Each structure stands twice: as structure tokens, then as C-alpha cells.
């Protein structure tokens, strides 16, 4: 048995800062929390490698920053209610978009309170402005940020129920227990629902509030299926578009410009449109012309029949080639190599988030304020922004958070809610807004295109220096920390949405880059830097933000370094891993996926590794690239170490999702910007993977607890899989992939720009 301090000593690479942070975290979580994991150096870990100085993301990552920002309101974050039927409720101030956080939080509550999981219901809280910087769902931070507060709140609730039981029975608290929703002891058995009133008394004599030692967990850490799955498979789960929270909701669609950020000059045929079946109103808004009708089908017909003249947009002359030129121009050159070098220049295209549920929102805005309903990961700033935009007083708009149909970063922003609110105010009626797929793909946000210069310098059979200069179109972080002050600080100005605010944006981007990007290898002095090109386009964080491209490119170079040094890529990664946890995961994944299996010509294995947010993962894929234009990943093996896994079943889901994202964006899915707008308009053109592109065999292994604190989960799986897929393709085809997606022709007839037409489908 050893404690965390001992673990850090064993690893020999982490600085003292890590220990201090963990100590603070533990103190917050519970004085009794302890971790019992024995670490030894793995075979294959050499000590001759050139160590890398600790990087920022190792000592203080984005998640730590978000947790710190939430500290002042942490005691208000989780509110647990027990009703008279003994059911436990918690309205979680985070957004569920498929990560399984409501199930994981229910598990924490059931574990800590000793009530059946079936009796715990976790819903989504509306925007709670008093939480300030503590209602942002991003940075893979939900379970990291709610783990301690949820357990503490649940333990306090349990302590109150036990105290009430003691009061009722006369038995001392120390001789009572909570078991399966009953307070039991000395022959008594009282359902907790019968004790709620007494337990709520402010004068109740309380016992100590102690959270469980994780070694006593019986639910947390064991695979659990999603609690909301039955509602999903029966069609009963209500997404925003399925809700009718107020009567008389008009269906709204927006006719959008032929270029990004173009604005309306004039409507040519307003009278004719208003005569169309079901059409109720038109309104010019900053993003186009809103059409309101009885059904979305009718709104769509009218939107397509509209004739509108447009003013120019903000990037009308830009296409993928011109944007690449800009990125190359802003990227800092690497300078002359000081010895043997392995180098690569990489390009990644724009990628649409493409969640299945397009931007959708309901708004009911009156003269004095109102309500918006949408899947929102930053509901506080959404409401504040809408208040400012519509000239309404602070606190007058309520943001109701609905479960979202996917996000992948998209719902950090509230574009739909803002637009619905503008339309509702303009027409004076409650509205339900839906973006068409074409609009969502062309005018919705996307992962920014990026350009990468990577170099490893070799000397004496070793890597002695590692450099990576990233140039990216600026990523929009104007959601800030989910609250208006930091959102303004992150503003870079977009005439269609937000008034230009000076400064702040570059600082915010650099902070995110510096607090998420690190090299997991001892490659000597390591430089990773971000250079941004400010193009007023609709961007936003995409799953794993900078890591998918940045670390993905690095994993490709890692394979090339190993080859230059005559080493096996998996053994090489183990040898250079900064942390024994990393080495263990790499080794386990190699075993799980049978690394080194002899395969026929045209088939190959590929390997990738990634560490972020206190977690790490390795991915091994097998690819069939006998036809290099039609590759298929046929098998995958993935291993994840999450420090303290809460729901391994959910973690497997997230890794599977990351793998599919990687297969898609590495091989075939990207956007062609052409004269200021993406050509891709639907899934028939933006080639996100389908069943025929997905592996038929996937093995996933979640490591048992290693650190005692949950690491990030949602974004982890993508960058390693990008490396694995690209490396497998490289090995199978004998090429060096440098531009992504690898197979990227315009193999479709684009929809006519500016019409938003989707009725006729060129395939």
C-alpha cells in the first residue's frame, strides 16, 4: 500500500506541484479518502531517455482551472432532494448530450447514500446564474468537477436521514445504517421517505458527515447501463424539438446567406411568401430571414421559395487553399535543424460537429423578459447574452436546459437559443426554431482548420528535442467560462452575433492550448506553440479541442521516429513514456490488440497514445487498405486509464465514440470551404462514418483505479485513435499521411448556395 505521494515519487517525473494539487483535492473530497495502488516500474521502461521538463498541462490543466473557477460556488453546486416516497432527486447543473453524466452522477449519489440506483433521478438544472463560472459543460470536466461536491452532498443527506432515524427511534446514530433506502438498526427499519421532514429540520442533531472510502464502493467503478436508455429506445425521450412547453409555438426556419456572415439587403417576394400555406410571419434578423409557419414542412417550403438579396459576408474570398496559405503565413517557422531530424508538415481541414440534432431552440420572449429552451452547455451566459442582445434587464431571461442530441463541442454555444429569442421578440410570439441540416453544416460552427510543423531532433540514438508549431484558424471561445464577464474577455468579434470587443481572445486561446496540450513522452526540451489566424468564421471547440490534430500529428511523427531509430513503435512509446501509467496503458493495449500480428498485404496495424485531463488511453487498429481509396478500419483495441473510473460502461461508450470520430476525420470527413461557404451540406456529402466504415470487432479495456480521482473522459478517445488510424493507413499503403482527411475529393454535387434547398438530393 502506498499513498499518492508515494506514487509520484515512484514515477520520478512529476513535479511537486502534482502532489500538492492532489492533496488539496483530497482534503476537499474527504479526509478519509485514500488510494491503494502499488506501482512498480514496468519492464521496458528505460532511464536513459532525455527527460522533459514538466509542462503546464501536466501541472495545472484546463480542468483544474475550471474546478478552481467553480470553487466559490462549489457548496451550492449539487442539491439533493429526497421525497416522501423515498426517491432521490438531483437537478444537475451540467448538460447531458450523450456522455452519460446523469447516470454517473446518479451512481455517485446511490453509492454514497446507500439507496437503490433505480430510486435516484438526475435531471438537468436550468441556468443558475448564482453559480457564476460553475455551470459550463466542457473540458471533459463534468465528473472531475462534480465528483467531490456530489459525494459530499449525498453524504450530508445520508447523515441527516440517519440523525432523523436516531431521533425517531432513540437508537444512537452510530448504531444505525442506511441500507437500500431504509434506515436500519436494532430491529428498526424505516423507509427514508418517512424521515424527510424530520431530516430537514434545522435543529436536527447531526452526526459526522463522512464520504465513503472508495475501497468500500459497491456501485461506483462497476459497469452500469444508462438510466435514460429506455426512454431513448421507446422514443419517449424529449429533445428540444419534441417539447411544446407553451401553447401556440410557431415553427421557425431561417433563410441564410450564400456566404458566411452575409446579411439581408432586401426580401424580394414577401407578399407571395406570406400567402403560402401555413405561413404566419416573416422577420429580418441579423442572421437572415426568419419564416414562421404552422409546421416545419411549411416553413421549409416558404424558406426555399423566398427571394432575398444579400450583402457580402466576412470571408467571401476564402477557400481551403487561401486559408491554408494564411495558416502557413502565421505559423512560426521551426528554424534550422540542429542534427538528424524527423519532420512533418500536417494540414487538417475544417470539420463540422454535425450533431444529429441540428441547432434547435424554443423561445418565448415578452417585453419584460422570457424563457428559452435548448440543449445548452453554457446556459448562464446564454441567458445573459440574450438579455443584452434584446435590451432586457439582467436576470429576466430563464435558460431551460434540455437534453441534447449530441454536441461534440457544438452546444458550448447557444446560437439556436439566441436566434430563437431574436425571432420571438421580433414577431411577438413564442417560437420553435430548427436549423436545416444544410444550414447547420454550412453556417453552424466547425472545428478550425489547422497547419502543423513538427520536428524531432535525434542524437546518439535518442530524441533530444521536440518542436511542434501549430497554426489554427481562431477557435471561438466566447462562451468564456459560461458567464458573461469571461465571455466578453474571450470575444474576438463577429458582426453577425456579438459586438466587437477588444482583446482577450488570443489570451483565452493560448490559455486553453497551454492547459491542454502536453507531450506524453520524454523527448528532451519540448516546445508546443499555437499561432492563430483571425478569420471571422463560425468555429468552436470540437471534441478534444486542439488535441485531435496536434497530438494526432505527433503520434504520426512518433511512429516515424521509432522507424528512424529502428525501434518497434509500441516498445518505443513504452520506453519514452513520461509516466508509468502511460506505459502500463500502452503495454496493455498492445496485448489486447495483439500488436505485431502478421497480416496480408494491404492490411496493417497502427498504434496511438494520448494523455490529457489526468487520464490516458491507447488505441490499436487494424486497417484494410488494399484499395487505398477505400480503406476500412476492421478491428480496434482500446485501453483507458481514468484514474478513478466511475462507470466503465459509459467510459467504453466514450472511447468507442472517439474512435468513430477519428476514423471519420482521419479518412473521409471534412469541409471544403469555397468562396466563403462550405460545399458540404448533409451527411451524403460530409462523410462521417456509417456502419460500413466502422470496425466489426472492438475490444475496450478500462484500467482499474490508479490515482483515486476521476480524470476527464469525453474527449480522451479521439487523439490516440487519430494516430492509430493514420499510422495503420501509412503502414498498409507505404505512404506518409500529411493532409486530413486523407481521402477528400468533392465527390458530390453541392446544394445551391443561398437557397438552403434540401428537397432534391444529389447523391
Amino acid at each position, binding site marked *: 500500500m502506498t499513498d499518492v505521494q508515494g506514487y509520484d515519487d515512484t514515477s520520478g517525473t512529476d513535479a511537486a506541484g502534482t502532489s500538492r494539487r492532489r492533496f488539496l483535492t483530497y482534503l476537499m473530497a474527504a479526509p478519509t479518502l485514500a488510494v491503494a495502488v502499488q506501482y512498480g516500474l514496468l519492464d521496458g521502461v528505460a532511464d536513459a531517455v532525455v527527460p522533459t521538463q514538466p509542462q503546464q498541462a501536466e501541472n495545472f490543466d484546463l480542468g483544474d482551472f475550471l474546478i478552481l473557477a467553480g470553487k466559490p460556488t462549489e457548496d451550492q453546486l449539487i442539491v439533493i432532494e429526497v421525497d416522501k416516497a423515498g426517491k432521490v432527486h438531483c437537478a444537475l447543473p451540467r448538460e447531458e448530450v*450523450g456522455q452519460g453524466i446523469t447516470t454517473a452522477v446518479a451512481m455517485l449519489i446511490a453509492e454514497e447514500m446507500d439507496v437503490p440506483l433505480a430510486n435516484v433521478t438526475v435531471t438537468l438544472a436550468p441556468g443558475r446564474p448564482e453559480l457564476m463560472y460553475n455551470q459550463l459543460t466542457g473540458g471533459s470536466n463534468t465528473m472531475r468537477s462534480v465528483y467531490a461536491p456530489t459525494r459530499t452532498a449525498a453524504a450530508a443527506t445520508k447523515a441527516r436521514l440517519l440523525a432523523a432515524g436516531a431521533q425517531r427511534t432513540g437508537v444512537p446514530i452510530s448504531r444505525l445504517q442506511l441500507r437500500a433506502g431504509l434506515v436500519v438498526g436494532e430491529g428498526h427499519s424505516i423507509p427514508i421517505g418517512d424521515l424527510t421532514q424530520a431530516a430537514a429540520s434545522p435543529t436536527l442533531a447531526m452526526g459526522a458527515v463522512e464520504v465513503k472510502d472508495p475501497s468500500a464502493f459497491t456501485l461506483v467503478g462497476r459497469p452500469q447501463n*444508462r438510466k*435514460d*436508455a429506455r426512454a431513448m429506445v*421507446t422514443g419517449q425521450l424529449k429533445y428540444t424539438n419534441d417539447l411544446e412547453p407553451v401553447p401556440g409555438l410557431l415553427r421557425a426556419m431561417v433563410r441564410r446567406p450564400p456566404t458566411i456572415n452575409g446579411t439581408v439587403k432586401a426580401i424580394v417576394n414577401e407578399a407571395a411568401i406570406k400567402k403560402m400555406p401555413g405561413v404566419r410571419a416573416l422577420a429580418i434578423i441579423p442572421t437572415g430571414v426568419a419564416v414562421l409557419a404552422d409546421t416545419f*414542412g411549411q416553413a421549409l417550403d416558404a424558406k426555399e421559395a423566398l427571394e432575398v438579396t444579400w450583402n457580402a459576408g466576412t470571408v467571401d474570398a476564402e477557400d481551403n487553399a487561401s486559408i491554408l496559405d494564411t495558416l502557413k503565413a502565421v505559423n512560426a517557422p521551426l528554424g534550422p535543424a540542429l542534427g538528424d531530424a524527423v519532420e512533418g508538415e500536417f494540414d487538417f481541414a475544417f470539420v463540422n460537429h454535425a450533431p444529429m440534432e441540428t441547432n434547435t431552440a424554443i423561445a418565448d420572449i415578452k417585453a419584460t423578459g422570457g424563457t428559452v429552451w435548448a440543449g445548452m452547455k453554457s446556459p448562464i451566459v446564454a441567458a445573459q447574452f440574450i438579455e443584452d442582445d434584446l435590451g432586457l434587464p439582467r436576470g429576466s431571461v430563464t435558460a431551460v436546459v434540455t437534453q441534447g442530441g449530441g454536441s461534440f463541442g457544438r452546444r458550448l454555444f447557444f446560437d439556436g437559443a439566441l436566434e430563437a429569442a431574436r425571432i420571438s421578440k421580433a414577431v411577438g410570439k413564442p417560437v420553435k426554431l430548427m436549423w436545416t441540416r444544410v444550414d447547420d453544416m454550412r453556417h453552424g460552427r466547425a472545428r478550425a482548420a489547422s497547419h502543423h510543423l513538427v520536428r524531432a531532433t535525434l542524437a546518439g540514438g535518442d530524441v533530444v528535442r521536440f518542436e511542434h508549431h501549430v497554426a489554427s484558424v481562431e477557435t471561438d471561445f466566447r462562451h468564456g467560462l459560461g458567464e458573461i464577464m469571461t465571455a466578453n474577455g474571450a470575444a474576438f468579434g463577429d458582426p453577425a452575433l456579438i459586438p466587437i470587443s477588444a482583446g482577450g481572445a488570443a489570451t483565452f486561446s493560448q490559455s486553453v492550448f497551454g492547459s491542454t496540450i502536453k507531450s506524453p513522452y520524454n523527448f528532451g526540451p519540448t516546445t508546443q506553440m499555437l499561432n492563430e489566424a483571425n478569420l471571422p468564421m463560425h468555429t468552436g471547440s470540437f471534441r478534444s479541442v486542439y488535441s485531435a490534430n496536434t497530438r494526432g500529428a505527433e503520434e504520426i511523427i512518433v511512429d516515424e521516429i521509432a522507424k528512424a531509430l529502428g525501434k518497434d513503435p509500441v516498445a518505443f512509446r513504452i520506453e519514452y513514456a513520461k509516466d508509468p501509467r502511460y506505459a502500463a496503458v500502452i503495454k496493455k493495449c498492445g496485448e489486447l490488440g495483439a500488436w505485431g500480428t502478421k497480416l496480408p498485404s494491404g492490411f496493417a496495424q497502427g498504434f496511438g497514445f494520448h494523455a490529457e485531463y489526468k487520464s490516458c488511453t491507447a488505441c490499436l487498429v487494424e486497417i484494410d487498405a488494399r484499395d487505398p481509396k477505400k480503406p476500412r478500419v476492421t478491428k480496434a483495441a482500446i485501453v483507458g486509464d481514468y484514474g478513478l473510473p466511475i462507470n466503465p460502461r459509459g467510459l467504453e461508450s466514450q472511447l468507442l465514440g472517439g474512435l468513430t470520430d477519428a476514423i471519420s476525420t482521419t479518412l473521409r470527413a471534412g469541409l471544403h470551404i469555397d468562396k466563403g461557404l462550405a460545399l458540404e451540406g448533409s451527411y451524403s456529402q460530409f462523410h462521417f462514418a456509417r*456502419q460500413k466504415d466502422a470496425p*466489426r470487432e472492438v475490444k475496450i479495456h478500462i484500467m482499474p483505479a490508479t490515482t483515486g480521482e476521476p480524470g476527464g473522459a469525453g474527449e480522451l478517445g479521439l487523439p490516440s485513435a487519430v494516430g492509430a488510424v493514420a499510422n495503420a493507413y501509412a503502414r498498409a499503403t507505404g505512404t506518409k499521411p500529411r493532409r486530413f482527411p486523407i481521402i477528400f475529393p468533392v465527390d458530390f454535387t453541392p446544394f445551391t448556395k443561398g437557397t438552403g434547398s*434540401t428537397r432534391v438530393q444529389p447523391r
Partner: protein
Amino acid sequence: MPKYSFTLNGKTVQVDAPGDLSVLWALRDKLGVTGPKYGCGINVCKACTSHLNGKAFNPCVTDLRDVAGKDVTTIEGLAKGDQLHPVQEAWLEQDVAQCGFCQPGQIMAAVALLKRTSNPTDEDIDAIENVCRCGSYFRIREAIKAAAAKMATPVAGPAAGGPSVPDVAPGQLPATGPGVATAAAGAAALAAAAATRLLRDADETEA
């Protein structure tokens, strides 16, 4: 406004709307049946997949007038009261859904596939085009295989008569290729005849 009448999940419904209104919006905006989702409107994401007279169809590209007098089943009509369809049960057991938005369509597509062939090959499953942006494809595959086994199992056994010709629709014959049958799919094959019977029963119940 014209009126169109059809059977929806076992009940006769009437809609007052233009005949060229797509069934998706008739269902969602006129009838309040929201299981079928909008994902593209042009039949390329398949999130709205439902059944018309027992076969998969996509309401987003089907005009209201074309379902008049016919039998429409959406995800809401798949379970018999609280008794889930074996495909829904398999979806729960495999914990398929992440965001869940595409899953009604995925399930309806899987049910339609299993009606055509009780023992689908990997190639058959590959042919399902429904997009899952969360990337749950592998679990969907496993759930379809588990459902096939589940639908075969109740009357499976040596007495079931052994392998027989599966109920495969024309054009749905498994492609030859390096497909590897799983244990689950193999078990299903043993009871293909029984499964076919069960599926036909299901067809009749739903019709």
C-alpha cells in the same frame, strides 16, 4: 384543407394538411408523434426511419398523400405496452445509446432488417445506412446480433429442425466475403426456422 387518414401505431388517425406535406412533419407537428427525428430531411441520415406496411420507410421524403389508407408504425408503436420488442431489449442490454437521437431510427431499421433476414450477416448490417454521430456502431452491430439470437432462442434447440434457408428478401442475399460469424449469430443460425416463424408472427401482429 384535405384530410388524410391512415393507421398509426394501430389506431386510425386523420390529418388536415396539404397532400405534399412530408409524413415526418405530419407526425411531429400535426399528430405530436415525436419519436421519428429530423436529421437531414432528404433521406440520407435515416433518423426518421419508421415502417410503412411493415417495411422500413423514411417519413421525411414521403408525402402525406402517399400513406393514406396505409399502416404506419413509428418507434412508439414497436413495444406492446410495457413489453419491449426484442430489438429494444437488446439495445438496452448492449447499452447502445449515447445521445439517443438516432436510435429510434436505428432500431426501426434493425427491426426491418430482422424481418427480412432472421440471421443477418455482417454485410447485411453494414448495409444499414443510418448515421450515428456518437459512433455507437459496434454496439448497434452487437445488439442486432443479440436480438437475432434472442428472437431465435425461445423455441431453439435440437427439436427446432436445424439450419434452414433464412427468410431473405430478393436483393438481400448476403454478399460473399470475409465475414466472420459470431457465436451469437451462429446460435441464431441454428434456429433460423423457428426465428422465421416468430418473425412472421410478429408481422401478423403488427399488420
